[in-house]
């Protein structure tokens, strides 16, 4: 995937990048569990 995006990650840096990516995925999972209002209805009061 990194290559497809034009990114080169050296082997020595891979563990750190993987660790950060795992953290971001964890944060993303937090949001995935949250049901947002339907599109067009952000809940912002008029």
């Amino acid at each position: 995937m990194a290559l497809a995006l034009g990114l080169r990650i050296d082997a020595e840096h891979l563990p750190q990048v993987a660790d950060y990516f795992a953290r971001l995925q964890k944060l993303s999972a937090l949001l995935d569990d949250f049901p947002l209002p339907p599109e067009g209805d952000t809940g912002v009061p008029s």
Partner: protein
Amino acid sequence: VRSLLLSAAETAAAVRSGKVRAQEVIRASLDAIAATRGELNCFTDVLAAQAVADAAAIDLMIQSGGDPGPLAGVPFAVKNLYDVAGFRTLAGAKITREHRPATQDADAVRALRTNGAVLVGMLNMDEFAYGWTTENTHYGPTKNPHDHARTPGGSSGGAGAAVGAGVVPIALGSDTNGSIRVPAAFCGVYGLKPTYGLLSRAGTRLLSTSLDHVGPLAGSAEDLAIAFRSLQGMVPRKTADEHPIPSIHQLRVGLVSNEFGEAMPDAWSAVEAVAASLPVSRKVQIPEVDRARAAASLITASEAATAHRDTLQRRAKELDPLIRDRLLAAALLPATTYVHALGFKAWFRSQLVTVFRDLDVLITPCTPFFAPVIGRTGVDTSTKLSIGRFTQPFSLAGFPALSVPVKSDTALPVGVQLVAAPFGEALLLDLAAYLERAGIVGRWPLQRTAVKT
């Protein structure tokens, strides 16, 4: 003259009245910078020749009967992501040394100079402002002026340290997730993140377009107000004259509930000290703060990786290793994650709008702990990620927030965050001034810096 470096208001008054020449003030600031530069490493560039020339022009204007403005002769410095005509904008990076010098000042720089302030230098920061501690691999770590073994916070760490050390009374920082308020808290000064979109970011190197704010740090509530109003392009006046608080007891003040986030007991003690002098009517629960922090982190990551995508593809090895690996990970995030985080941002903002229908001001801790010790092993990743625990949610919502330094017997500075509804800056600045007059808040005394007054 050196004592004037602690107060922009007093400096400007002395210069405008002819009691002190701007050149004397600027030379004192430059001397103070030189005396502390090696130890604190706040500055990446000191613009001595230009500053002395600008000060001479101000003195000439005063001698000719003119008025340079409400910041006449006041030295200030800017985080090195603001364009300054004739100089390279480094943004904490090495590769930016190859860029051409800026051809014009950023709007915020121009606003302060137009009001008579004199730019004396550009300040250290985390690379691309993507950090919390100003431990910059290219330019070295900036030290906390109150304990040189500790970080001043980040990413506007140079700004926090320079104001905290008393070498300039005002500095400009930027705040994506807390990068003005955290250094202000760690360095014992005031910092204001205004309402999102209120101040022009033109001429600044952005990290996250959805969350970036520009704003001032200062050593007093009055100086913060003068700087903010100058940035708005308004003629600064005394805050109390412009927006009087009819009665402090009429304010609807809320205290954030403990569920908002874990913090050291001293942080909550500071909050209680501020709350004790205000009519706190209730505890306030902010919904979904963990998700708000997550959304802010994801939006920042996605937008930062986008902003620096070309560099990541071509010259990643030349980036600060502390930043590079995080940006590379961020570049791999799917667009769906980013879009979902933006959707949550809109929802969370609507929730805060509802909360502030019955509230004028919310009081929260600013940071969960004191300034951490410098060192990659000393400040681990989990610590870095939690430094912005209390500031991130209000960045996400774009609400104005002000960090005040609380007077306490703690060994290190501790800040409290005051939050208002959008465009409530005047209220926050008035409240900070009120707390200062009441003796609850005030700049942390200089103890270990080379500049004593």
